[in-house]
């Protein structure tokens, strides 16, 4: 589904701030793969996601999604088929617009014709949005006319997740999307994430700082450091791995301790 072929990116080249954020990264995900990514601060995890979504063009390499070469596609064209959740729950929704309006915007992806520009949200769509909201079990279906700014961070992130997957994306990118939530809410959003991904067999990349999640969720684990993927494990080998093994592997491959200010070693 996703092939990243020797991608490199240097920020501010030729200045004192020059920073090689991605260094010859290659990665290939099959349909329905769910890979977790862990790594130190500044390892390039978010940058990798931004390269996939197209917020900048890579210096070298190719990105192929679902068979299409999207290396030089514009960001808004790619986002038709990519779901992206940020760590900051405020980034995924428009605060001064209602829940219903936010969902209608996400649903725009489904429409291919330009005539849709001048159409309004139909009663049928409202019913559909309502039904989807009720699955969250947060009472949002009765608040569809309220501005999203009134929701809590967890509610906003759950809504964003719903919006990102409303039209099934070719790939779902989750960038520590539960890190800013309190533990109970984080669990709820995570459970919802797992459910949606499993139900629709969505291909997914998820950055996490929780070592337990890194091994228990999905079917593959990647470790990043200094703009490179330093360790990659899947299948039976992964099942046998403990958190300590994972940290050991990182130390061996990266030549240093995993250094992340948010890291969670236990459950």
């Amino acid at each position: 589904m996703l092939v990243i072929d020797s991608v490199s990116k240097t920020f501010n080249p030729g200045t004192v701030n020059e920073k090689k954020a991605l260094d010859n990264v290659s990665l290939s995900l099959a349909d329905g793969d769910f890979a977790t990514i862990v790594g130190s601060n500044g390892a390039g995890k978010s940058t990798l996601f931004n390269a996939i979504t197209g917020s900048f063009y890579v210096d070298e390499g190719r990105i192929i999604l679902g068979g299409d070469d999207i290396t030089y596609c514009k960001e808004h064209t790619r986002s038709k088929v990519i779901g992206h959740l940020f760590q900051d729950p405020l980034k995924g929704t428009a605060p001064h617009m209602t829940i219903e309006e936010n969902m209608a915007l996400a649903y725009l992806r489904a429409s291919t014709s330009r005539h849709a520009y001048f159409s309004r949200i139909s009663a049928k769509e409202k019913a559909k949005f309502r039904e989807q909201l009720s699955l969250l079990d947060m009472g949002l279906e009765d608040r569809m006319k309220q501005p999203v700014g009134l929701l809590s961070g967890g509610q906003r992130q759950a809504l964003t997740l719903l919006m990102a997957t409303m039209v099934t994306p070719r790939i779902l990118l989750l960038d520590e999307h539960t890190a800013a939530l309190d533990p109970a809410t984080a669990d709820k959003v995570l459970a919802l994430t797992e459910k949606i991904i499993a139900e629709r067999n969505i291909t997914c990349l998820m950055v996490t700082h929780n070592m337990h999640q890194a091994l228990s969720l999905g079917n593959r684990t990647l470790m990043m450091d200094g703009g490179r993927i330093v360790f990659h494990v899947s299948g039976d080998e992964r099942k046998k791995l403990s958190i300590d093994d994972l940290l050991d592997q990182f130390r061996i491959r990266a030549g240093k301790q995993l250094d992340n200010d948010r890291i969670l070693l236990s459950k």
Partner: protein
Amino acid sequence: MSAIFTLSILQSALELGCIYSLVALALFISFSILNIADLSTDGCFTLGCAVGAMVTLSGHPYLALFAAMGAGICSGFITAFLQTRMGVPSILAGIIVNTGLYTVNIAVMGFSSNVNLFASDTIFSLAKDKVQASWYDSWYKLLIVLAIVLVIGILLSWFLNTRLGLSIRATGDNEHMVRASSINPLFMITVGLCVANALTALSGAILGQYQKSCDINLGTGMVTIALASLIIGETIIGKGGMFQRVIGVILGSCLYRFIVALALRLNVPAEALKLVSAIIVAIAISFPYLKEKSRFYKMRSNNPGINRKEENTNVSH
């Protein structure tokens, strides 16, 4: 009330309020919704008036309104083009276009700095002849501008609830979200500025026909006045649906005209009017902030347990 305001003063304040409210609605789109300070407003207003006046002179007062809107769209497109495709910061893009428009406007008026329409038919003179009734003679102008503004207001609030309108609103509300959801923000900014400038130019064209003249300096200070109207409107109506907010902006514009009329009634000399406007604008814009601040002071004085020494750190935000 009647001691200060005569009916005719009230009436003309309402008429001007409606006409200028179109500019306030334009800023509602560019400033409140898209979060862009469009400083080409002054020039675009004059452009609308100039284009409208020339087409009116040639005998087509209705066509003049559409021609002016077309000119406004072009002006808005250039402002948008500069900021979305050429990397010019939005404030500068507005200033550049505004400067360029001065020459364009003079050229449109046949290289003269004013044009008068006393001998031409206008939408007002044509409408006046339609009905013979004494009440109509004094109210027809207000009826016309009110009708235009209401139609525009309804169309605008309808538009802002279509998918295109939603996308424009999201562009000004959360850039990250827009980029993640298949909306092209550059296109939305372009559409938004085109619509806004069409309204600004329409306002200019109507004003030109209303006062039967067009002057090259007509638009000077328009952006400040419209901003004041917009903020007065948003302060009195507050949050709500799009239609409610649009109506608020129109009311704000009328209210602003009442305040100016009041100042004139109190024998403020004509030369001082710009200063009065500036003061009204400053008060209107700082009002929401002052209200918030006074709430803080009230809260503090109602709370005896507070440590006065912390005052500085508390207020500094």
